């Protein structure tokens, strides 16, 4: 044991003297082959390897359960002297708070959480911006005015996404309703497909989703209707259905964080980046008519410039209560803890 520690210190000292590459670890909650959430974080990691080359070493572990098991993984990386550790799921919060206190020399970054410590910061993207834009597409393309939304879990992030999407739908098509079904999964193709089918059965002709699997896209393609994806460009999975997807793009943000750790300017700020930062964006397929695409892109530019916000009052909840008056915009705090649906959403928050 003592000898091990001695070797470890020697190793640390020599590596420090050689200006060793920054060691960065990523912890993913799902397999990186999921084509969704974890896949996009891993794309960010690969982007780092490309940008920094030999100045950086990255490692990762996939499918790490949230809870106590996650904690031993965070501890394992910190123990080996990794400089920067990214935890990419909400459920790692307690573990990261605890481990960050034990290892002050390691910088921790937690995606989608809200607790910080001296060496733990949080980051997330304003996904509601591209969600709103994808809502414009859905609202313009529906003929039955029934839009299906396969929702993941009843948490603020998902609810905010549904509301932003519904705001977009409402903007172009006040008659259309967004019907929500919960799958209570992040990645379970069979169940997510079933949920999509239940929406198709009530006449939905556009299917949107919040999970990592492309199963809802495929369900829409099977019925010959349209779909809105999530996370990444899912057109390959449903070429005749896929219209658009709000997507993550972590690379540039990860680059910024790595640079700040390298030059010692990192702070434990809570980062929430939008389209203007490049953290999130929308992709459109060729199936979107040019008129609709033009509208979406001009709205996108307005959001980037700050002239437009997806949530602008008047906004009513499902019971018809006025939540935000004419021209009013919810605060970040309100957005981060959203637990109600707007008036054109059909469904209940479980």
């Amino acid at each position, binding site marked *: *044991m003592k000898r*091990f520690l001695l070797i470890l210190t020697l190793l640390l000292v020599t590596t420090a003297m050689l200006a060793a590459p920054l060691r960065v*670890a990523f912890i993913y909650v799902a*397999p990186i082959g999921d084509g969704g959430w974890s896949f996009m974080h891993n794309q960010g990691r690969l982007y780092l390897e490309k940008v920094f080359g030999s100045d950086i070493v990255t*490692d*990762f*572990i*996939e*499918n*790490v*359960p*949230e*809870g*106590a*098991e996650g*904690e*031993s*993984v965070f*501890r*394992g*990386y910190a*123990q*080996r002297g990794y400089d920067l550790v990214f935890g990419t799921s*909400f*459920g790692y919060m*307690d573990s990261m708070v*605890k481990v960050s206190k*034990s290892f002050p020399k390691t910088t921790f970054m937690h995606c989608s959480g*809200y607790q910080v410590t001296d060496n733990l910061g949080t980051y997330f993207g304003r996904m509601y911006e591209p969600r709103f834009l994808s809502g414009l597409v859905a609202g313009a393309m529906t003929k039955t005015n029934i839009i299906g939304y396969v929702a993941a*879990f*009843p*948490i*603020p992030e998902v609810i905010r996404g549904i509301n932003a999407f519904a705001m977009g739908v409402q903007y172009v098509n006040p008659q259309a309703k967004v019907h929500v079904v919960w799958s*209570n999964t992040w990645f379970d193709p069979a169940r997510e497909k079933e949920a999509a089918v239940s929406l198709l059965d009530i006449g939905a002709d556009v299917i949107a989703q919040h999970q990592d699997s492309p199963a809802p896209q495929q369900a829409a393609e099977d019925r010959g209707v349209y779909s809105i994806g999530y996370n990444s460009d899912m057109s390959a999975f449903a070429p005749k259905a896929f219209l658009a997807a709000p997507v993550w793009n972590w690379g540039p943000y990860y680059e910024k964080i790595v640079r700040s750790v390298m030059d010692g300017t990192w702070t434990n700020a809570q980062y929430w980046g939008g389209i203007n930062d490049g953290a999130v964006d929308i992709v459109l397929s060729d199936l979107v008519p040019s008129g609709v695409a033009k509208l979406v892109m001009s709205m996108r530019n307005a959001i980037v410039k700050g002239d437009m916000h997806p949530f602008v009052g008047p906004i009513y909840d499902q019971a018809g209560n006025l939540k935000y008056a004419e021209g009013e915009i919810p605060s970040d705090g309100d957005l*981060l*803890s*959203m*637990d109600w649906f707007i008036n054109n959403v059909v469904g209940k928050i*479980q």
Partner: protein
Amino acid sequence: MKIRIEKRLEIPRYAGIIVPVISVAVALLIMGIILLVFFVGRLGNLSSAFRETVEAYKEMLTWPFANRYGLFSTFMRMVPLAFVALGLSFAYRMKIWNIGGEGQLYMGAMVSTWGALFLFKDVKSPLIMIVLLSIVGAAAGAAWALIPALMKAFARTDEIVVTLMLNYVAIFWVDYLVYGPWKDPKGYGFPGTAPFPDQARLPSFFDDEFHIGVFIALAVAVLLQYIYRKTGWGFNSQIVGDNLLAARYSGINVRNYTIIALVVSGAIAGLGGAVQMMGVQHRLQHGFSPGYGYTAIIVAWLAKLNPLAILLVSFLFGGLLVGNDQLQMFYKLPMALISVFQGLVLFCLLGGEAVSKYRLAIVKEVPENE
């Protein structure tokens, strides 16, 4: 000429140790070849691939058992496995197949959370709190197992199906609570209960990495060993398991034994849920168990239902899980390969078991009318 599988008449005593050891060695060997091929693909030449394979193996086998931090991680994974497996052994001895360890674990965790956050929130003494939470956790697991027990005892339903289905019900209950009424009011609407107060946490040491749950598991194992070996219950339950008819003729009330076996089984798993909450989780959240209740079935079976062997096997299994994490964390091995490895270990252990119990016999066919 025919080939027939027949039962070995005599199994040498040392087979119980030697066969699993050889089985694991075979699994390691096969996996070594797979790893070698994998690393050749990545590194391009055989000698560096060989070095990498040896390094990876060393990492996988030493970190979980010979390094302080790895050892703590191993203990952490061992504890829930051990509790559920100990519980299962109690029912399996009577050939009552409780597949509901996962649900009983969830129920124990759920009700102990209720105790910690609501029911006993005015209790300030850690000792009283921990005892109370252990009791309500065990009671919850017992109550959850009582359902299939009564159904089996009085309606002859199949306990495998009922206990399995109740797992999903238990998980849905926990989900309902953590996404709904028990959601942490200070949690910005995110799922999960409020954290446990300090007095509801098990004493822990070494920078909070090691909690006393392992000693509680040890105590339960010793108690079970005593019950199995030295008490009338132990003897009678063995008879029920070995020969139900004989048990009936000898006047054992099989119905009562069935009910008690499942209830105690559930109680131990429920206690495990409470310990997991008080020891490491400190708050109830969705999916807090990555299937410990199912892995424990394998653990109980590999340990041949012997309580002390269960502790050993769950320790080794915990180490296997931790070691496999290391392979992913530092050698960039894909998760799928890790699953293959875990499958290989089980496959070889099962195969070894079969080989030690049965043998192939070549039978010469004898003409019929002779």
